């Protein structure tokens, strides 16, 4: 065991060389809000929600290696406000009509927004028009909720070895695309048992024939905040570690 340590919001956190701030914090049971991070896959740092201050400088906790004896600010007003603004921008950029979404109640975007105290999206909504892909017998893809976190891309590539998904285009034109001749999921070799099917932090991947299976009040994030419950892909992940 290494004796390397750093401090998050006054709490001493041990780490092994090579661990990121996020890895070490999760192992120590300290919650840092995140969407595109999943410990099973390489971090990309693209959602920016795990923004923290390392010795006074902004870094993304999921990509920044921990540094011995450093000071990390996580739960401070300034960062909380910035996380809230990031979330508000994610909400207005897509079509996040929670009352009409099957993922509602076990959606990480929603849960993180509850956690930071977001009451409204504040900005002007884009209301983009995005077509559904219902071509696959087991899964509907609702691109209206896609936040371009790239987790399905990474899972399909590294766990499933299928490379079914990619982010195409740049800037405002970025979108999730399917690697099949028609561009439809039904014409790819996707299976509902793929790792890529269960990593989505929002409501893009919706299994067919299930609908609103769990009653309101019993869903993943209905009773306790995400800091206690853990991620959609790893419920109780943080608690199990310690």
């Amino acid at each position: 065991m290494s004796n390397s340590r750093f401090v998050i919001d006054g709490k001493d956190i041990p780490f092994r060389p090579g661990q990121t701030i996020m890895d070490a914090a999760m192992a120590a049971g300290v919650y840092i809000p995140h969407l595109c991070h999943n410990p099973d896959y390489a971090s990309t740092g693209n959602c920016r929600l795990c923004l923290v201050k390392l010795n006074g400088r902004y870094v993304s906790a999921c990509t920044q290696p921990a540094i011995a004896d450093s000071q990390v600010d996580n739960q401070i007003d300034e960062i909380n406000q910035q996380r809230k603004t990031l979330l508000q921008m994610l909400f207005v950029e897509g079509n996040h009509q929670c009352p009409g979404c099957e993922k509602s109640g076990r959606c990480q975007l929603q849960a993180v927004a509850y956690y930071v105290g977001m009451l409204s999206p504040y900005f002007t909504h884009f209301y983009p028009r995005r077509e559904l892909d219902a071509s696959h017998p087991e899964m509907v893809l609702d691109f209206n909720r896609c936040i371009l976190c790239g987790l399905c891309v990474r899972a399909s590539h590294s766990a499933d070895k299928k490379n079914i998904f990619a982010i195409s285009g740049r800037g405002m034109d970025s979108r999730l695309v399917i690697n099949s001749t028609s561009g439809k999921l039904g014409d790819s070799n996707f299976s509902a048992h793929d790792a890529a099917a269960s990593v989505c932090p929002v409501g893009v991947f919706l299994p067919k024939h299930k609908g609103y299976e769990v009653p309101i009040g019993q869903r993943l994030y209905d009773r306790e905040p995400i800091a206690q419950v853990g991620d959609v892909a790893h419920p109780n992940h943080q608690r199990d570690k310690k």
Partner: protein
Amino acid sequence: MSHKIRVATTSLAGCFGCHMSLLDIDERLLELITLVEFERSPINDIKQLEPVDVGIIEGGVANTDNVEVLREFRRQSKILVAIGACAINGGIPAMRNHFELKECLEESYLDGIGVVNPMIPNDPEIPLLLNKVHPIHEVVKVDYVLPGCPPSGDTIWTFLTELLEGRPIHFPYSEIHYD
């Protein structure tokens, strides 16, 4: 008991679910009416809006009448509250924003399944639909928001009681949800 807080409520492009939720505070309504006086509201069917302390708006802005009512509420209310998903982000009615208004009207009144006597209504008394459905904060300044579809009776109760007592409003985790 010299001065009660005056409250008005209305539903724009909403389903009245938020008003039903207000009634869901159940027997606490008796306590509430010792504290507040209801002015214009679907609950008492008063149509004229007088100046009030708190105006509560359910629903988004989908037609010209919604715009007029919303602006009148803003003028007459010291504090304006957006209640429910539709007032906050357009909600389910805003799902028509992905389509042209013409497409929506044609689907509903001309080409839809089971339509008899197809024609698009054009009576002058029917408010004109806006091209898109808007959250109310895109039209007027909003002072407080209460998310939920609808917000629970408990959420509404927490909000009203803490507002009336002049405290910063703090909701328990279970009282804030977007659905």
